[in-house]
């Protein structure tokens, strides 16, 4: 009886654990977008980049590869998160104003017309983004504002930082 009681308790505990884990997971699907919305998406560049502020218009031109050089004539290297990340979804919606299919078509067309020598570079995690922005002069990418470290440079957008009221990438 005692063994059965312990076993029942364990099952109850396990069930509670699974239930808690699932309840954490379910809101977790929507939570990252909320996090981006609340704390903002940061635009980050290599530390040596001589730019502190970009207008939304300039940012869009860079992400669309209409502007491919920084003012000091070094080439801009665009790092974009792989599909199915909340950061990428946010950027496609707020900067590119495209869905995934149009985004793909846009870059294929851009390369087809020989307007760019290569497409955006794909990164798979925030850590990878951080490592590469630190390592690659001229690189630009994006991540949640909470993930920005001192090793990279945070860019103001329309004169505002993610912590400011009215930051456009929230």
């Amino acid at each position, binding site marked *: 009886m005692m063994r059965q009681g312990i076993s029942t308790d364990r099952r109850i505990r396990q069930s509670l654990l699974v239930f808690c884990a699932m309840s954490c997971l379910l809101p977790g699907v929507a939570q990252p977008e909320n996090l981006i919305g609340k704390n903002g998406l940061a635009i980050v560049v290599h530390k040596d980049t001589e730019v502190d502020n970009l207008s939304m*218009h*300039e940012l*869009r*031109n860079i992400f669309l590869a*209409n*502007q*491919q*050089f920084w003012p000091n*004539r*070094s*080439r801009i290297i665009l*790092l974009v998160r792989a599909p199915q990340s909340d950061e990428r979804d946010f950027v496609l919606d707020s900067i590119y*104003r495209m869905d995934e*299919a*149009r985004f*793909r*078509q846009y*870059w*294929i*067309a851009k*390369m*087809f*017309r*020989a307007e760019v*020598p*290569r*497409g*955006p*570079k*794909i*990164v*798979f995690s925030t850590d990878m983004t951080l490592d*590469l922005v630190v*390592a*690659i002069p001229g690189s630009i990418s994006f991540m949640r504002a909470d993930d920005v470290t001192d090793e990279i440079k945070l860019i103001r957008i329309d004169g505002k930082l993610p912590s400011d009221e009215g930051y456009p990438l929230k």
Partner: protein
Amino acid sequence: MINRPILTSLLLLCVTLPGIQAVHAQNSGEITLSDLSDPEFNFMGFGDISYFSRDGSSQDGFVIGQAVAHLSAFLGNSLSVFGEFSATGKDSGYSLEVERLMVKYDFSDLLKFSAGRYHTPIGYWNSAFHHGAWLQTTATRPEMIKFGSKIVPIHFVGVLVEGTLPRNALGLSYHAGFGNGRHANVARSGDAGDINGDKAWMVQLRAAPSQFFGLEMGLGFYNDEISPGDRPDIKENTISAYVAWTRESPELIFEYLHSSHELLSDSSVSGDVDAWYAQFAYRLKDDLSQWKPYARLEKTEVDNTDPLLFDQGLDYEASILGVRWDFNAYAALKAEYRNEEFDNGGRENNFRLQVSFVLTKL
């Protein structure tokens, strides 16, 4: 015993396979630090296969449109090489063509310099879609810029400078080219030198205002002196203009071209060509977003006095209806009905079913 062609093919496969795998690996977009110092290669392929049926034609059937390979190499901070090669099915077999081959040096956004063989920067379609059937909404190109068109100089060989004016809300950019004019066969460019020593030149200005994302407008001018071989030398001036709204819902493209041809030896012998098309498409929403119905009107008129094209039977009118189904991220099926009239010879109907695809990892 393995015969010689098979042996050769196997040998080629062995030689090229590691290269293809390397290209594929680099084209996956995943970056490593070693990519930053090494030359970077990219591959893209385009292809289309169609079934067509035309009133009164005895040649209805399947046709391989074009198999196109794009190879590009980014060789350093500013230098890149781009090549485009096609194989086109014809009655006599396949014709292989170097469509584009250029080496390009980017000084800045304002100034990019290149030399090679290009799609002539004239109008919209010729640069925007060209051999990428998958890229264009419709199954077929407008007749005025069909492959082998005598109306538009589709390719040119020479040098090109291009650039985007920095920090301008109008999104102004320019292309200016100088090079070999048309060949004696006016449908071809002067691939082995200019036939008469008088080089062609062209300028195109484009605007893509940031306030109207998706809108693009362009105005271009092309000048050449042509030596057709079977007739005296002719001076050619072409003006082109276009407006394109490319946000898919809707998509609108209007392109107009006016060419004037004049005998060099007698300016009273001259004539004009007017050609245009207007295309409308609309990608449906939500669950139907894979579907994109479209329509296009086309017209080409050649003066009877045009010394270059009067006897080529190029007058043309068409009404086109179709639908595109993007059943896969990299492939589309298009069904297209055309009601058209060639050289005032009476209306005919034409139906085409086409599957087009792109090979890339992006």
